[in-house]
């Protein structure tokens, strides 16, 4: 039996089933907290624990899925390219906004990690948590973080951003769709962008643009991590 569990087809199949259930539940409930990724992960963890299946067996198939993360990041170039006109027209506010956002995110996380006395591994895992998962995990791995913790923090941040985006808009009293969209994309990547798209076309496009740009800027800033970690 254990040999069958170690077949890559096992891991890939149960991941697709769990993901499909997650997407269905989200479509039915339309609640941000019922995030399909979160549901899929919870279901799979439950299956592994209940049936006492080692993570390593699951990962034989899981690793095949992981393989696509890199090429998926490459394809984000297509969405940035599609918004090129918008970027050309507003390049200065976009660049200033994303730079300030990335700096705020990194500095605030770093200061809080120190305040909580977290070790190097946890700090490296949490630092890139405001950017999109494929970029955040790559940065975390490069600097000695734990990829699983980074995925958890990125997902939690995205769901949070999606839930509180309308409150944030009121709290900071800015209605300009350009500012709102970039703000949401900078703080809560793709999951937040889903909410920005509901708010309006400009908000959604700007939020999507911020995902790619903040990811690139964070990677560049990450080169300086070694000085602080």
């Amino acid at each position, binding site marked *: 039996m254990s040999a069958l569990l170690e077949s890559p087809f096992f*891991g890939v199949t149960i*991941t697709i089933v769990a*993901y499909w259930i997650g997407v269905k539940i989200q479509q039915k409930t339309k609640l941000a907290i019922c995030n399909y990724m979160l549901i*899929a*992960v919870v279901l799979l*963890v439950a299956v*592994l*624990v209940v049936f006492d299946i080692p*993570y390593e067996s699951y*990962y034989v198939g*899981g690793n095949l*899925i992981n393989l696509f993360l*890199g*090429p*998926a*990041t*490459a394809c*984000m*170039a*297509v969405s940035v*390219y599609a918004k090129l006109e918008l970027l050309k027209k507003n390049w*200065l*506010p976009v660049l200033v*906004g994303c730079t*300030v*956002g990335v700096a*705020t*995110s990194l500095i*605030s996380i770093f200061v*809080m990690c120190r305040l*909580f006395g*977290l070790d190097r591994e*946890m700090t490296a895992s*949490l630092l890139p*948590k*405001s950017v999109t*998962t494929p*970029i955040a*995990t790559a940065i975390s791995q*490069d600097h000695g973080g734990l990829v*699983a*913790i980074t*995925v958890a*923090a990125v997902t939690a*941040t995205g769901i*949070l951003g999606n839930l*509180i*985006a309308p409150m*944030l808009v009121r709290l900071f009293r*800015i209605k*300009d769709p350009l*500012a*709102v969209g*970039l*703000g949401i994309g*900078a703080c809560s990547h*793709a999951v937040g962008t889903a909410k920005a798209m509901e708010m309006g076309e400009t908000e959604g496009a700007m939020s999507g643009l911020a995902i790619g740009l903040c990811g*690139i800027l964070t*990677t560049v800033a990450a*080169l300086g991590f070694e000085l602080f970690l």
Partner: protein
Amino acid sequence: MKILLQIGVVFGVYWGSQCIEAVLPFPFPASVISLLVLLGLLLLGVVKVDHIREKSDFLLGNLGFFFVPAGVGIINYANVIWENAAAFVTICVVSTVLTYGATAWAVHLTCRLMEKKGEREK
């Protein structure tokens, strides 16, 4: 054959980026290099969006799916998260609020400054 070629283009760009990553003297993830390379190829017109449309729609449309196995890895670190639960939650909430506020205000102020400058030039 069309889809196969599209996979070839995207995987080829990614492999090329892994080669670049290997020779760079500092840590810079291949995934971000491949984003920049593909964007460059699109801007130069070497690759057209039509060359990779279906493949990129498939990858981006199901982006969440590809993170699931990495997320399940949390099973190995449940105790680490549990021990640091207060820090984890605080950091997620505070940095999200601050990042939104700082970005939105920075964009707002930049736009205001540009408007003022525009008025003066008139």
